């Protein structure tokens, strides 16, 4: 059980390991996803996509498809010219070269999977057949695939309006780097790669759009994480008045950031619905999802660290090459800068410098994928710490300990400019070491090494930045809305601007509301995702839903409870300040026997016969919460692996995760997020890699070739917590949606490198594929 938390079950609803309210419908197949939506007269869309990474379009012949059975319409980029603006990018940076993706390409394609035409038909079979009848004459151009070659002289320029393939340069400097390196006893350098990843949510994307001409109302159902932002962007792309557009995110089957975006198909399907005066559905296939939904990571980092012989970190310099792909999606250029902001990790490094070069290549755009910049930063700094430990022949735990800021130093101003809210890194690490029985693990490692077996132990102590975030740092604002509406019968409807798609806020928000109003979570219904029902919100990403959206709701709950206290005090002739909400009753602390039913108090506020002077009828409150800072969850992970020296196979033997996300609303869901996050980073560390060949073909184009982790690849994950409340919000909560992913890749890779230490290996790139390990071992053996 968690350190700092009692083992006794909590009395109230907050902190209770309640099962998810969402699950009964999901496991019974009663969830209603975009694919489940069927409207009268609905037609289906399919997209002709470029098979080339880079080519001129000479001509497109749609004549055969136009006359194919069941085909309703065929449109090319020319047919929609001027009708739909390009896919938006929300990021503004000095000297940023824009590269916006057209909804359908007209003269040139710049990555495999780029849309060139759309077919609409009476059923999806007719559409699929007609796609094969469209003849596109391409003149292939040299593909730019390797980001380093892309910015070398003579590379083919992907966007002819720009002089080269450099999209931007971004720098961050804190402290005196020159001095740091001048004072160093040692300087250690290492190149590290965060490979390109495909998000692979269980549900691919999908869009249904309906235009009701009489009402001039466009409704778009989309598998999105950001229904309100999508509505604003769709209105702009289509030139439609925003109040005539409704976006609904129905059940959404996972996103991991890949649905935190605005996609060409969302605008195209909406346009088709208006143009054809028919409801239109488009469902992305898995192959399309691999080619045309954003990818993540893809950063090459050259790190240099200056240290003293006692392990004190003096300075860190990182040069980052970020492969952005061919076009920007919503946040593409932003993600690498988050790597820069978190590069110092949870260590006191007096001087840091990060230089990022964002590069265009003929690939799908990279964008926010679970962790977005922070897993990259954590991987780099945590590998650096292990490199330092190895170089100085010190225990990796000792080197970490030496450089942590102390709890009393918080809020802690990092050299990168961020102010970390609260933490106790030392306790977190100690808890993990104790749980893993670290000294015994080291003994076991020695014992096995003598027998020719290669066990490795990897540590990672991470901090991340989430609860995104203060509006000053967020392109569309960083606040969130929360409405609490107590219905006349005493049941509660919560409307949140967050847009959960697997995180479980229908449960945790109900727990918070039930606790505050003395009700049962079953009395609370959490609505989200419908822009007509819910006040404007920002959405779910950056582990922000509870810290920001939950706080907005919490503040509304406070307002509602205050009002009902007034009402109850008025009825009971007691002091409103002494009202207690418990078990569906409201009573005064001074006269607990004289209680009212919660529903009766609410009812009185609605029937409004005897309201206190000056009180409005009704029981509803809305809050737009603006956080003063990000929140900074942290933790310590320990991974144990064994490497088969003959095959290079890595087996995960043990995983211990101690995480601190502040106060916990539901420990079951926190554990679930940590488990899922770790598994996703097992994917990056061990299996996943989006591979484009030299022609820019995505050769890991389906799940037969793109390996994701499976249950059998995983050890039991042992989780524990420390609790360091955040001062940034009244509930003291931080985020936990990405922490597992952010903290764990370096723990795994550090363990593998540790296992290979007898072979003189100091670094191995992800994924730690068998053949890669086998080659390292073979090289070492041949070198002897």
């Amino acid at each position, binding site marked *: 059980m968690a350190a700092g938390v009692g083992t006794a079950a909590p009395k109230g609803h907050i902190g209770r390991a309640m099962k998810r309210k969402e699950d009964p419908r999901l496991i019974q197949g009663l969830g209603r996803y975009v694919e489940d939506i069927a409207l009268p007269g609905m037609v289906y869309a399919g997209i002709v996509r470029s098979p080339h990474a880079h080519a001129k379009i000479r001509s497109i012949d749609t004549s055969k498809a136009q006359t194919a059975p069941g085909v309703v319409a065929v449109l090319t980029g020319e047919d929609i010219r001027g009708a739909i603006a390009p896919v938006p990018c929300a990021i503004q940076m000095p000297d940023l070269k824009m590269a916006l993706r057209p909804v359908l390409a007209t003269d040139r394609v710049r990555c495999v999977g780029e849309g060139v035409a759309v077919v609409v038909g009476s059923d*999806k*079979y007719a559409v*699929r*057949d007609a796609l*094969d009848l469209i003849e596109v004459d391409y003149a292939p151009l040299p593909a730019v695939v390797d980001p380093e070659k892309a910015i070398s002289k003579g590379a083919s320029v992907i966007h002819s309006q720009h002089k080269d393939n450099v999209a931007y340069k971004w720098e961050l400097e804190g402290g005196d780097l020159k001095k740091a390196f001048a004072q160093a006893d040692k300087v250690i350098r290492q190149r590290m790669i965060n490979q390109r990843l495909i998000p692979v949510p269980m549900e691919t994307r999908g869009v249904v759009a309906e235009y009701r001409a009489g009402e001039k109302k466009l409704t778009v159902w989309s598998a999105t994480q950001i229904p309100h932002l999508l509505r604003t962007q769709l209105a702009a792309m289509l030139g439609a008045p925003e109040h005539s557009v409704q976006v609904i995110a129905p059940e959404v089957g996972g996103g991991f950031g890949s649905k935190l975006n605005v996609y060409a198909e969302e605008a195209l399907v909406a346009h088709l619905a208006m143009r054809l005066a028919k409801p239109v559905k488009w469902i992305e296939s898995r*192959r399309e999802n691999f080619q045309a939904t954003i990818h993540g990571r893809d950063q090459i980092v050259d790190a240099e660290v200056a240290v003293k012989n006692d392990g004190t970190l003096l300075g860190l310099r990182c040069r980052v090459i970020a492969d952005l792909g061919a076009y920007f999606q919503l946040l593409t250029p932003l993600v690498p800068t988050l790597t820069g902001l978190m590069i110092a990790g949870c260590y006191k490094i007096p001087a840091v410098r990060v230089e990022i070069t964002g590069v265009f290549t003929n690939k799908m755009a990279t964008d926010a994928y679970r962790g977005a910049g922070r897993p990259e930063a954590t991987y780099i700094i945590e590998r650096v710490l292990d490199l330092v430990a190895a170089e100085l022949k010190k225990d990796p735990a000792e080197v970490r300990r030496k450089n942590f800021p102390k709890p009393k130093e918080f809020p802690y101003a990092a050299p990168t400019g961020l102010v970390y809210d609260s933490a106790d890194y030392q306790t977190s690490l100690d808890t993990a070491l104790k749980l893993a029985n670290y000294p015994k693990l080291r003994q076991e490692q020695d014992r096995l090494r003598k027998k020719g077996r290669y066990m490795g132990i990897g540590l990672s102590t991470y901090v991340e930045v989430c609860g995104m975030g203060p509006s000053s740092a967020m392109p569309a604002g960083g606040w969130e809305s929360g409405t609490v509406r107590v219905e006349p019968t005493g049941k509660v409807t919560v409307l949140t601007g967050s847009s959960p798609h697997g995180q479980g806020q229908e449960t945790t928000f109900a727990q918070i509301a039930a606790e505050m109003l003395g009700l049962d979570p079953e009395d609370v219904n959490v609505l989200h995702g419908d822009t007509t029902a819910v006040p404007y919100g920002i959405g779910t990403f950056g582990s922000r839903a509870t810290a920001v959206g939950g706080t907005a709701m919490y503040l509304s709950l406070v307002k509602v409870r205050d009002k009902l206290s007034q009402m109850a005090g008025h009825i009971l002739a007691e002091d409103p300040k002494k009202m207690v909400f418990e078990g569906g009753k409201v009573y005064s602390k001074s006269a607990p026997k004289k209680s009212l039913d919660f529903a009766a108090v609410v009812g009185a506020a609605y029937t409004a016969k005897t309201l206190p002077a000056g009180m409005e009828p009704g029981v509803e409150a809305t809050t737009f919460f603006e956080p003063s800072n990000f929140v900074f969850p942290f933790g310590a992970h320990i991974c144990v692996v064994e490497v088969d020296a*003959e*095959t290079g*196979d890595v087996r995960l033997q043990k995983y211990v995760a101690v995480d601190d996300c502040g106060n916990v609303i539901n420990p079951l869901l926190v554990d679930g997020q940590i488990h899922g996050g770790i598994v996703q980073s097992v994917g990056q560390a061990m*299996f996943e890699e989006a*591979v484009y060949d030299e022609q820019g073909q995505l*050769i*890991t184009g389906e*799940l*037969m*070739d*793109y*390996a*994701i982790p499976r249950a059998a690849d995983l050890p039991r994950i042992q989780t524990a917590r420390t609790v360091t409340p955040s001062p940034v919000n009244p509930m003291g909560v931080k985020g936990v949606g990405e922490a597992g992913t952010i903290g764990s890749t370096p723990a795994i890779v550090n363990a593998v490198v540790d296992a290979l230490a007898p072979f003189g290996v100091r670094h191995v790139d992800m994924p730690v*594929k*068998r*053949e890669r390990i*086998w*080659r390292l071992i073979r090289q070492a053996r041949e070198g002897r």
Partner: protein
Amino acid sequence: MIPAPFQYHTPKTVEEALRLLERHGDEAKLLAGGHSLLPLMKLRLAAPRYVIDIGRLKTLGGIREVRGKIAIGALTTHAEIEASDLVRRHCPLLAETAGEIGDAQVRNRGTVGGSLAHADPAADYPAAILALDAEIVAASKSGHRTIPAAEFFVDMLTTKLRPGEILTEVRVAPMSAKTGTAYMKLPQPASGFALVGVAVRLAISRAGKVDDVRVGITGVGLKAYRATAVENALRGNPAEDKMFAEAASFAAQGIEPLSDLHASAAYRKEMAAVFTRRALHRALGRARGKAD
């Protein structure tokens, strides 16, 4: 899945299926469990005009003893083979191999006949079929014929089956005494197919020498093969690990190993040796009645 249009036939008898196959020739494909054909049709890499679904022909299912051999109907699923008492008792190698295929869903739908007829170079069964010296029975309008496993696999996705033939059965001789078998594989991490799969049948003498040995290897080359160089190096020699290691080094002799995203030729070659040695070791343990 939205394949290209096709005409779908469900013959009621093997004879009717053979007639349809003759009539439609190259334009027809047989559908059994669908785990090889349908993925190709989904991607439109295969677009047969006629699909003849033999999946419901009861006469092609079932496992029984026929004249001292275990006869396994072509439509028997991997899961049925994995669970069959008869197979586990008399040819445990086949049950072990079946259990290594894909995942539970694949094993519940995929069939032994379909897998063998498709002859994917990374499929699991071919290794076992070769190590077991199995016979493959094919029916045609002119009757039945039996093809020895050693001759069955011709090239990548190509077998000795002739146009107009249907694979109806696989026959395996029961394992003799003092024999141990093992199938060990290095799976491709995404698909689960064998990057290297080695099936061994090892018979040892009272004196502890290798009486007889068969080594079938899949995943390494364009087709599954018998590692005869390994077999020759072992036969008559002491059944011990040092000998196994030496013999296993010939596992890919004369084979040009495949090279792809998941394993280079050099790695496949080396892993063929590693997994051959490991499978020999395991088979030996089993021949001696030891737990793995």
